[in-house]
């Protein structure tokens, strides 16, 4: 018994000792990061009232939106609604923006937004537009960076999972939309196991027309691989577009095993200048492919949705020299082109090494017909003839690479959770730094352009765990900001993000700031149901459709007393905000309206659709605290029974009968 007690006591002592050691290790770890934070704090400190040096545009992933951050502070500046309805701003709820979310499947109020891409001029970000892909119901959106509003959404037909998108050429001649999931072509009811026979992969090239609007220029029909990511050639390789592929095994079930069998998959290199020649020669098939193009007009403040019926399809059989496959080890994910345009980095996510192809080698391999084989009329170039170099064993699970302005590349490693800095040309690893945790994309402002701004690097992490105060089972995803101006990378800041930012793009604030609009001039408002002044306000009935032409200005609506509405009416409240002062929006909410609020910017008109269900008198009010008399900004709408003959009447500021 005594002996047993002795054992017990010694066991407790051992456990306590281990616990003590573990605890002190823990504190010393904290002390380590603490030492760093001192100068890191001043590096990210942007004093109150001061502006950040960079804009960062972060995709919202499954939130379907884009969030805008200031860098280096990591402050959230705005969330731009793109593919998802946003009750906060009325986007996708008001009559003007509903058409933005129209597709050939009807109204689709959500999507999965992955890759923001800034427009470029001469290979440099120009701050005019931001493009972003909708992954689930294939779409590409364009955001106007003078208003930070979504101005266009185009649907991509013959596609499924628009993932390798919307990467741009160096003058934004094209943005691309490559299908991640191959689908039957044309889409039809077939057995899933007829995959190899019926399924195809489609790569779409969207061009900017003269009015800088998106339209589908052509599609390239390829084997039923999964097309994962893309990047355009630049400088010497301008004119080419590169797409990574996986599932070259062409399997349709248990892909985690079945699509990981081939030693090498491919990078598909598309000569889009040649594609333009084939189009000009009429060497294409015009096929039925219904898709919608939705455009928001800044003068009418209204979006229109237009059906397009066909697309031009190019096939490798008919267009020799259009496509080449570059063998690349083990399911390459990112494909990134260095600022000179010479090196094409294929991140084989299951490969031990990082593969770098040389554009010069690729051209001579094509010229000398150094083909390994041909798949579906596409020549497969010999691996060792296109290879430019290998970064040996840099880490585990390489995903994406961006560049600085000093000839260095930075690659993310998902499995080993780190960013690795290496030298382009010598392939030598220079530095590595951990991320918290499991980094996906990374972003250096201009880091995928010809002119990177090599000051900061943002790691976009997939897993958050313990980085912030816990908020239940679901945590916001985490981003980390690093200083990359010196030889060694330095961690500066952690900040939580909205949704799941896959990728981000950064740009010097000076390229956007001065062009940012403050108001919409009221005299330019061309909305079909605008009221440019209180004198133009009215209520009009046509059958059971009632249109209320209403205005808002600090601090009243006109009209603010409305009678003669009936149960079962279809009421459109067209609210024009007459303000012409920066940052004075007015909102509108009506009790019981099964809809979101309106949030109307100065000079803009927006419309709320409302079907009154019950008789009574219902208040409406301004939802955006606009002025000292915001609480007084309210009104009443009287709803009478169906068939009632209460006359239509509207007023504002009429003398009170009691006084």
């Amino acid at each position, binding site marked *: 018994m005594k002996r047993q007690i002795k054992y017990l006591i010694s066991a407790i002592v051992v456990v306590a000792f281990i616990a003590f050691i573990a605890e002190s290790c823990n504190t010393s770890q904290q002390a380590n990061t603490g030492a760093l934070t001192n100068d890191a704090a001043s590096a990210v400190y942007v004093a109150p009232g001061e502006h950040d040096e960079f804009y960062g545009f972060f995709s919202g992933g499954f939130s379907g939106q884009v969030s805008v951050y200031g860098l280096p502070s990591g402050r959230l500046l705005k969330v731009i609604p793109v593919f998802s309805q946003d009750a906060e701003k009325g986007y996708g709820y008001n009559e003007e923006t509903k058409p933005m979310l129209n597709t050939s499947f009807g109204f689709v109020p959500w999507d999965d937004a992955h890759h923001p891409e800034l427009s470029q001029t001469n290979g440099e970000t120009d701050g005019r537009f931001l493009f972003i892909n909708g992954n689930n119901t294939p779409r590409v959106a364009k955001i106007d960076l003078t208003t930070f509003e979504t101005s266009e959404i185009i649907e991509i037909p013959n596609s499924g999972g628009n993932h390798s998108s919307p990467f741009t050429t160096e003058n934004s001649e094209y943005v691309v939309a490559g299908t991640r999931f191959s689908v039957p072509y044309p889409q039809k009811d077939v057995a899933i196991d007829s995959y190899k026979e019926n399924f195809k992969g489609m790569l779409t090239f969207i061009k900017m027309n003269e009015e800088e609007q998106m339209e589908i220029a052509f599609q390239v029909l390829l084997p039923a691989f999964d097309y994962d990511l893309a990047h355009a050639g630049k400088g010497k390789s301008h004119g080419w577009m590169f797409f990574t592929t996986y599932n070259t095994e062409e399997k349709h079930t248990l892909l985690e095993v079945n699509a990981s069998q081939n030693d090498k998959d491919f990078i598909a290199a598309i000569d889009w200048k040649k594609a333009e020649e084939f189009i000009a020669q009429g060497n294409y098939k015009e096929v039925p492919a219904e898709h919608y193009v939705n455009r928001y007009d800044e003068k009418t403040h209204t979006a229109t949705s237009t059906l397009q019926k066909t697309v031009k399809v190019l096939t490798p059989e008919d267009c020799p020299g259009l496509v080449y496959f570059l063998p690349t080890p083990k399911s390459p994910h990112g494909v990134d082109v260095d600022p000179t345009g010479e090196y094409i980095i294929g991140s084989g996510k299951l490969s031990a090494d990082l593969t770098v192809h040389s554009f010069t080698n690729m051209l001579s391999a094509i010229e000398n017909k150094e083909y390994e084989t041909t798949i579906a009329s596409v020549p497969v170039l010999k691996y060792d003839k296109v290879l430019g170099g290998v970064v040996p064993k840099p880490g585990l699970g390489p995903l994406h690479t961006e560049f600085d302005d000093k000839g260095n590349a930075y690659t993310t490693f998902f499995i080993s959770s780190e960013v690795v800095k290496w030298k382009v040309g010598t392939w030598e690893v220079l530095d590595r730094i951990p991320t918290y945790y499991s980094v996906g994309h990374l972003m250096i402002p201009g880091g995928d352009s010809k002119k990177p701004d090599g000051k900061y690097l943002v790691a976009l992490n997939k897993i958050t765990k313990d980085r912030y105060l816990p908020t239940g089972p679901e945590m916001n995803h985490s981003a980390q900001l690093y200083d990359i101006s010196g030889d060694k990378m330095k961690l500066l800041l952690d900040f939580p993000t909205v949704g799941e930012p896959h990728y981000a793009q950064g740009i010097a604030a000076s390229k956007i700031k001065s062009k940012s609009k403050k108001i919409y*001039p009221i005299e330019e408002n061309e909305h079909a149901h605008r009221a440019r002044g209180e004198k133009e306000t009215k209520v009009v009935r046509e059958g059971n459709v009632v249109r209320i032409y209403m205005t808002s200005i600090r601090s009243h609506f006109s009209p603010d007393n409305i009678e003669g509405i009936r149960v079962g009416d279809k009421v459109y409240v067209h609210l024009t905000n007459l*303000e*012409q002062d920066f940052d004075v929006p007015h909102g509108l909410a009506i009790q019981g309206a099964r809809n979101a609020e309106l949030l109307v910017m*100065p000079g803009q008109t927006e419309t709320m659709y409302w079907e009154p269900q019950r008789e009574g008198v219902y208040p409406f009010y301004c939802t955006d605290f606009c*002025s*000292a*008399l915001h609480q007084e900004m309210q009104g009443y709408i009287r709803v009478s029974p169906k068939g009632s003959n209460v006359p239509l009447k509207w007023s504002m500021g009429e003398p009170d009968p009691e006084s």
Partner: protein
Amino acid sequence: MVLAGALMVTLFFWPMWNITLLAPQYPDGVHMHIYINKIGGATKGTLQNVNILNHYIGMKEITPESIPELKYMPPIVIFFIITAFLVAFLNKKWMYWTWITLLLLILAIGLYDFYLWEYDYGHSLDPKAPMKFEGESFQPPLIGKKEIINFTAISLPHIAGVFLIISTLLAMFATYLKSRKSKTIPS
């Protein structure tokens, strides 16, 4: 003297006077510009913004149509420009004196008139105004700086106003030279 006349032409292109309102929530300030023939501002919406601010305290809406001076002023300015050239051309001492005396008289009347308008706007307040401040005057300063509730109001000549002052000084100097020598033509 010719220069004095020429400088007055600026009155048709630039504002004569500027009233700036500063408050923390207006980091760029609200700049109301008074021309000889219209009232504008740093932006197209400025006058509307000033009126929105004024309506809380029941100040009358500033509408250019209700200010007849904006119609009288342009012909008066044209008269002074033409006569300035005439005076320089005919070059008589009495003409210089008459011109400058008339100009100074008109300027004095103009400033007094401006004061009256400011007094009227600052004091004729709607008794139903949402905000009332006992004993507070909302009259902007004639010239200089003044605190009006949460705003700092600054009233100063704008580009054309400065040129008008230079023009007046030049005319005075020309008259002085003419009176002293009465022989040579200063221009």
